[in-house]
């Protein structure tokens, strides 16, 4: 299953995307074929020999013999677009040698890396060196935290209405130093402050409150040895360091997961794709994060609106949401699911309970039937919460809802509802950009 949105998301730039779309025509190809695992084609380029283009469907990895340094190249994109538009044309074919060789080489490489990892795991660890590395890293994190704590205390003493507390660039600068100190989670919190100073109309309330959250985190980190395991794991995750926890210890949940909402953002040349998954049977929410450094792109194997049968492993924490998929999962042929009858009141209760468990929580996802009504989104029970949207988004939601209740997925952060995706006559559509 390939969708144009998925392909668009992995295009390295607009020019490649356009060129790829233009190549999605049989006129440009000598041979095309495919099976369940891979699709291939011979692209007629300007050279004498046609280019050999291959795409592995599981992870949308491509290989092409063209000299382009873009990745994936336009031929790979073109082949995918063609397969998305006409899947039947890529269902049969005997793999030519240049395709099966590549697939075999990939499999061999994978085996080798698994074997390598096993070998590494089996090798006796140099305890002393590892301890030394960990101590060095922790030292750097501690230095960063001490610096941040002092800065926050100084600003609070001077007053959070002062010019230095309202300087977005200064917060951004602190964020960069936290990246250097290997505490990317703190960097994220500081960027949130920088955004608050720049864009939030309620900055007078929000800056102090969010600083309170940050300080709580720093304080808790200083006393981390007095907490239980879940709290320590949460603090570790909030700081953003590498998790030391054993993967197999994580809670595994098998379910049919509905890919309900996705937001893709770029900051400091790092692309982050955050996906909310809703388990149909477990009724649990899960957050799947993927990262890529520009100019790389993120290949999302699970398109928005699909339902995927998969096992997800939840990272430990105070209110576990973050997951890693266990294996590839496979998409089911399923329609957009009917919404559970959650109401806005129910969402507030769920949010309060989650916040009681995890005071660092920012936003919780929801999936319910809503209708836009001016500055509010209203539920079936006649209650409403404020929402924020650009004029374009508001118009789009108004057009889709037609004044009635429609299924919407979004986030609630304790202040406003932010819609991410919604249903339009049986089709699940994104309401936020799906490319950085």
């Amino acid at each position, binding site marked *: 299953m390939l969708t144009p949105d998925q392909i668009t998301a992995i295009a390295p730039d607009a020019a490649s995307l356009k060129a790829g779309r233009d190549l999605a025509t049989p006129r440009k190809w000598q041979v095309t074929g495919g099976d369940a695992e891979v699709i291939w084609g011979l692209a007629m380029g300007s050279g004498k020999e046609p280019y050999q283009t291959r795409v592995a469907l599981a992870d949308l990895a491509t290989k092409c013999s063209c000299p382009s340094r873009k990745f994936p190249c336009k031929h790979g994109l073109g082949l995918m677009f063609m397969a998305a538009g006409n899947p039947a044309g890529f269902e049969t074919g005997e793999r030519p040698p240049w395709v099966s060789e590549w697939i075999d080489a990939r499999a061999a490489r994978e085996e080798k890396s698994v074997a390598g990892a096993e070998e590494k795991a089996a090798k006796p660890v140099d305890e002393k060196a590892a301890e030394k590395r960990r101590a060095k890293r922790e030292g750097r994190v501690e230095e960063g935290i001490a610096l941040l704590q002092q800065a926050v205390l100084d600003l609070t003493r001077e007053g959070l209405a002062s010019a230095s507390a309202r300087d977005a660039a200064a917060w951004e600068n602190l964020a960069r130093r936290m990246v250097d100190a290997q505490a990317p989670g703190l960097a994220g919190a500081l960027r949130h402050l920088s955004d608050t100073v720049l864009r939030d109309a309620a900055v007078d309330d929000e800056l102090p409150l969010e600083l309170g959250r940050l300080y709580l985190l720093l304080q808790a980190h200083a006393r981390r040895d007095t907490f239980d395991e879940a709290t320590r794991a949460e603090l570790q995750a909030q700081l953003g360091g590498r998790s030391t926890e054993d993967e197999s210890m994580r809670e595994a949940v098998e379910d049919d997961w509905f890919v309900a909402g996705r937001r893709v953002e770029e900051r400091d040349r790092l692309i982050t794709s955050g996906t909310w998954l809703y388990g149909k049977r477990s009724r649990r929410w899960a957050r799947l994060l993927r990262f890529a450094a520009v100019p790389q792109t993120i290949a999302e194997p699970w398109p928005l609106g699909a339902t995927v049968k998969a096992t997800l492993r939840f990272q430990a924490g105070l209110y576990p949401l973050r997951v890693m998929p266990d294996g590839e999962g496979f998409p089911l042929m399923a329609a957009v699911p009917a919404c559970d009858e959650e109401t806005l009141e129910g969402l507030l209760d769920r949010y309060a309970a989650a916040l009681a468990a995890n*005071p660092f929580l920012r936003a919780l996802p929801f999936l319910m039937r809503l209708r836009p009504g001016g500055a509010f989104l209203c539920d079936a029970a006649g209650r409403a919460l404020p929402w924020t949207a650009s004029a374009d988004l508001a118009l789009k939601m108004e057009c889709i809802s*037609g004044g009635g209740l429609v299924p919407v997925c979004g986030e609630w952060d304790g202040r406003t509802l932010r819609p991410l995706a919604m249903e339009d006559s049986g089709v699940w559509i994104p309401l936020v950009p799906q490319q950085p």
Partner: protein
Amino acid sequence: MTTDPLIAATLLGTSRMSALPPAPDAALEPAWNAIPLENPAAAALQALGLLRALRRAGASTHEAPAAGDECPAEELPLLAPPAVDALLRLLRGEFPEILPEWLRLASAASCVLPGRALPELLQAATRNQSIRPASSRLAGQRGLWIARRHAEFAWLLEEAVVAEDAWETGQPAERLAWLRQTRAVNPELAAETIAKDWAKEEGNFREAILRLVAAGPLACDEAWLEGLALKDRRQAVRDPAAAALAVIEGSAFRQRAIERLWTFVRVERGASFVVTPPAAFDAAWAADGLKEKPPQGTGEKAWWLRQIVALVPLDALPGIFGLTEDKLFTLPRDPDWKDDLELGWIDAARANPAHALAAHFIPLLAKRSLWPLTAGIAQGPLLLLLLAPLAPAARFAILDSVARDLQPYIALDLLASVAEAPPAGSGRAVLAVLDEALANPLAPITRPQARALALCVPADAIQQRLEALSQLPKLSTAAEEFATTLEFRRSLLSNFASSP
């Protein structure tokens, strides 16, 4: 501005704070009172952390604002998702030239759009008048529903059926819709209503009335056009009013214009036009919109003559001079006034393109190798204006007849502007010009033009033309764009099963 004492204290700076304010809620008291106070800044920050959890978790819902009327259900089926995706690509700037054809096909398929594609289509149609009729058919009930809520889409209501009292109570768009409907069934009532309220209307609305009426003025419109619109303060009202009066058979205005022309231009022995230019400007002419002072570089008499000629629609000339239509423009003209006569004809054609005898006038225009700068309009745009009111078959018949007279780039430009496939059996000559240009790598075709030209290929000939293109040794950039557009068209056409 905040009212919370803790937040106010931290905004001012905790160096002035001696103690924490009391806990904002009893639920926080145990934790709040346990905060150590030796460092006021640290104490305030810890209290803020508690306050944040309280605020975030303590949000409450509001009473939902009353739901307005819900959008009525659509009677027609929704367009399939692949077709909707294709529309969104067109609206976002890929192959924009194909959009009108897509809209034509989609509305012919009797489907309506799902809500997600409405905003972009309506915004495009708000900018581009020509796609409005098809867009409003596709927008369905949902479009009307949204147009009643957003003033920028009010044009949708113009096409809609409105109530009897819309003229008195409606928005401007609904009043125009009333006018259009009433003119169709009871034009006398429409004319009376316009006359009755003329003085009360705003200038922009009077212009809108003229735009509506000038497309097909009727005898009953003469009174208000002559008595009110022709004397309006706005030139943008007076000019279309004059043009409209000139095409109402038997109107006093038209009679005056014809008599004036007859005074100064005659056909001698059915063999040539002879001009006796006016010696002086008659003050009475000014009431019909003639201007006495010529623009710089034009002689007075030539200027007056041109305006006198311009006020008579071209399709009235055969009757006035007793000539057949095909002879009219081939007759020798007074050598001293040859160009001024032609400039007057061009002006008359611009004012009433549907009354310009296009089949005979266009060949005359096409043969001009040197276009007069004083015409005020270039050759290509004028030809397009004259071709627009015609039926496709007539349009392509004319294009075929002049294809070889025009400069190839003008012919292609014209074809690209027409941007539609010729009906079966026509368009052969003009498509031959296109074929030559595609095979010639140096042909001056831009990429947007190439995309528009791809629309001139009939749907059933796309395959054949693509095969012909693939036989060419090397495609120019324009030919490549042409082929890509054709392929995209083919994929679009496959979304509409009913089309060939």
